[in-house]
């Protein structure tokens, strides 16, 4: 009964927040902005968060969380529209929707593709909300048994996981995380209160987390995109969008349910996120389908599985983020940064100390889903005009918004220069394969990481063996090692591919005879 209460209370409290008008207003704005960001290739959830993060600082934490999660719901829906109509996924998670959806569009079945995508996105999002509560509440309960060694293990796991699952070179990814730690060293030492690396007064308090994270994640990406001149000449043909019949929708029920479960679980793995969740779900749907030959040629089951999973992963990413303060993705790093600005300390006790954040998450996702139910079908057909907006315009306006937003934090030029300076560094990191997500995550977690290590060693009489051999710590650090091994194997696979391509190039250049 107690367990049922722990599940029902957050859902009920979250639903109760829907009685507040400000939540609905923020949800409407968030969904609209999220759909736009999702539909514009190159923007995506992380950048969408980064651009509006400064706007969340005058809000209270409940409003900020509800607003940001509404954006996630919007991007998860918006990215499928250009995928289906133009074969251009708005975000990488919609790649497989583009593959099947565009084929349907070409056959004159645009309404079928859009309708299935619409239904799967909403159902996936709605069903994943109770899953999220079901998993996050017990997880946050573990917080009471966490001492400094366990916290250290969690922070280490978070950084290693995000590096191991992304990028082609593990060493470069780890270097990115190390760089993030180095940035956070500047300022007042957490243990003895003396300044560190502070040659000028501005460095005394260190770099503010929000500008640093916005610089690494958002500004770097905008600078990278400014390399290119986007001559967007897409031709949108007229199409008829007839909502799918029940007999067609019925075929997609299994893939939607499977996609929702997989999306929630895979999304909960730090560093995994929407794209692997969608791909795994798609593969599973094909394996179980009675018509596997349709996959890749216009399969509504494929679209349903993909869309349900990537939308359910919004809830999945929240599980480690709110449960144990390990961000599940780049956008979740920004969510935590936003909470830090409000004076909340990311950590396993976050939900226990401020349960209203959990209710706000439920409210934001619920409100956004309900708004999508009412307006989503109409929006998907109107969005065509927005898709053709010049991307160069979007990039420059986004940069201007970021400068203003960061400046308005504390009206310090230093903060803006922090964001822009790290944006420049992040530009080069993106170009050459160093993980900006790991760097940003390290900036957010660094103080807790260092404090837990130093306090923990103090607690255990400076014995690193005792520190690491606590059962929970050993399990978490062991999991980090497993992820390291996964990352090493990924790196080796990419390097083998690189060697093969190099050999091929040499042969083609005629320097060596073919083997």
């Amino acid at each position, binding site marked *: 009964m107690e367990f049922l209460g722990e599940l029902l209370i957050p859902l009920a409290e979250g639903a109760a927040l829907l009685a507040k008008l400000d939540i609905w207003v923020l949800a409407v704005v968030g969904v609209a902005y999220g759909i736009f960001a999702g539909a514009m290739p190159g923007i995506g959830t992380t950048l969408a968060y980064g651009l509006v993060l400064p706007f969340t600082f005058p809000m209270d934490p409940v409003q900020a969380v509800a607003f940001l999660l509404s954006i996630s719901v919007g991007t998860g829906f918006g990215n499928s529209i250009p995928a289906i109509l133009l074969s251009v996924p708005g975000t990488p998670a919609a790649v497989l929707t583009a593959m099947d959806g565009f084929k349907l569009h070409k056959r004159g079945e645009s309404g079928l593709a859009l309708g299935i995508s619409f239904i799967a996105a909403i159902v996936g999002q709605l069903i994943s909300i109770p899953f999220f509560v079901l998993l996050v509440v017990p997880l946050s309960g573990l917080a009471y048994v966490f001492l400094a060694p366990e916290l250290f293990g969690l922070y280490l796991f978070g950084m290693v996981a995000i590096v191991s699952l992304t990028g082609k*070179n593990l060493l470069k990814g780890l270097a990115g995380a190390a760089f993030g730690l*180095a940035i956070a060293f500047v300022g007042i030492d957490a243990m003895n209160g003396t300044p560190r690396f502070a040659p000028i007064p501005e460095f005394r308090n260190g770099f503010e987390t929000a500008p640093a994270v916005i610089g690494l994640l958002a500004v770097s990406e905008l600078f990278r995109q*400014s390399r290119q*001149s986007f001559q967007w000449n897409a031709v949108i043909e007229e199409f008829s969008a007839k909502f799918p019949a029940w007999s067609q929708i019925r075929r997609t029920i299994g893939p939607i349910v499977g996609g929702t479960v997989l999306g929630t679980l895979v999304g909960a793995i730090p560093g995994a996120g929407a794209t692997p969740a969608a791909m795994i779900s798609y593969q599973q749907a094909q394996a179980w389908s009675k018509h596997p030959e349709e996959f890749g040629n216009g399969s509504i089951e494929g679209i349903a599985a993909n869309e349900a999973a990537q939308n359910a992963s919004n809830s999945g990413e929240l599980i480690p983020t709110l449960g144990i303060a390990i961000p599940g993705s780049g956008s979740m790093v920004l969510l935590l940064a936003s909470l830090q600005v409000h004076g909340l300390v990311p950590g396993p006790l976050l939900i226990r100390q401020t349960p209203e954040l959990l209710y706000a998450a439920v409210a934001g996702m619920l409100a956004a889903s309900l708004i999508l139910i009412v307006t989503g079908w109409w929006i998907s057909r109107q969005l065509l005009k927005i898709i053709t907006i010049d991307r160069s315009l979007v990039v420059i*306006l986004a940069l*201007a918004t970021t400068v*203003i937003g960061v400046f308005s934090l504390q009206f310090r030029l230093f903060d803006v220069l922090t964001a822009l300076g790290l944006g420049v560094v992040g530009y080069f990191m993106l170009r050459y*394969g160093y993980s900006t997500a790991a760097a940003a995550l390290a900036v957010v977690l660094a103080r807790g990481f260092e404090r837990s290590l130093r306090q923990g060693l103090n607690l255990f009489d400076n014995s690193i063996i005792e520190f690491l051999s606590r059962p929970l710590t050993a399990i978490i650090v062991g999991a980090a090692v497993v992820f390291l091994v996964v990352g090493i194997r990924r790196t080796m696979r*990419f390097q083998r591919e690189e060697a093969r391509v*190099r050999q091929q190039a040499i042969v083609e250049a005629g320097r060596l005879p073919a083997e």
Partner: protein
Amino acid sequence: MDRRADLAFASVVALFGALLVFFTTQQNPGPQFDPLGKQGLPYAVGTFLLIVGLVLVGRRLRTWRAEPSNTVWDEGTEDEPGHPASVLRAAAVISLTIGYAVALPIAGFLIGTPVYLIIAFWVMRARRWWMLGIVPIVFTLGVFLTFNNLLSVPLPVGPLNDLLVSLGWIDAVR
């Protein structure tokens, strides 16, 4: 990606690590309440970056002769196909954006922003009249009203301060 640039960046990583270790030695340790002290983790991170940088440099040099050209397998985020890319364009946008940020407290938002947008659009090869004329003005006014009126966040207005205060559009204290 260009292997020379990759090599250069790996060298920078190693150099950063070395500098981090060096500057850590310059820090006053202060009172020490734990075995690592405030220098422990910086030493570890600096050493790690130095080693990683050298390993990446060594890896690149080891395969230097075997590679047929300076363009190698891309480990970073690639440019999107079909759209011309230019590092000079990125450099120009970065410089403009930094200049805009530095000028903001002096020129103010209402003057600095449209100027920045027009020049940046031009750099991005936008030539349509509505992009160079209407968008900067609409954006500037829209953001100003949003921050000033909706969010109650006063943006700097620079030399227009006295005029706008006398018109009653903004508060006197800024």
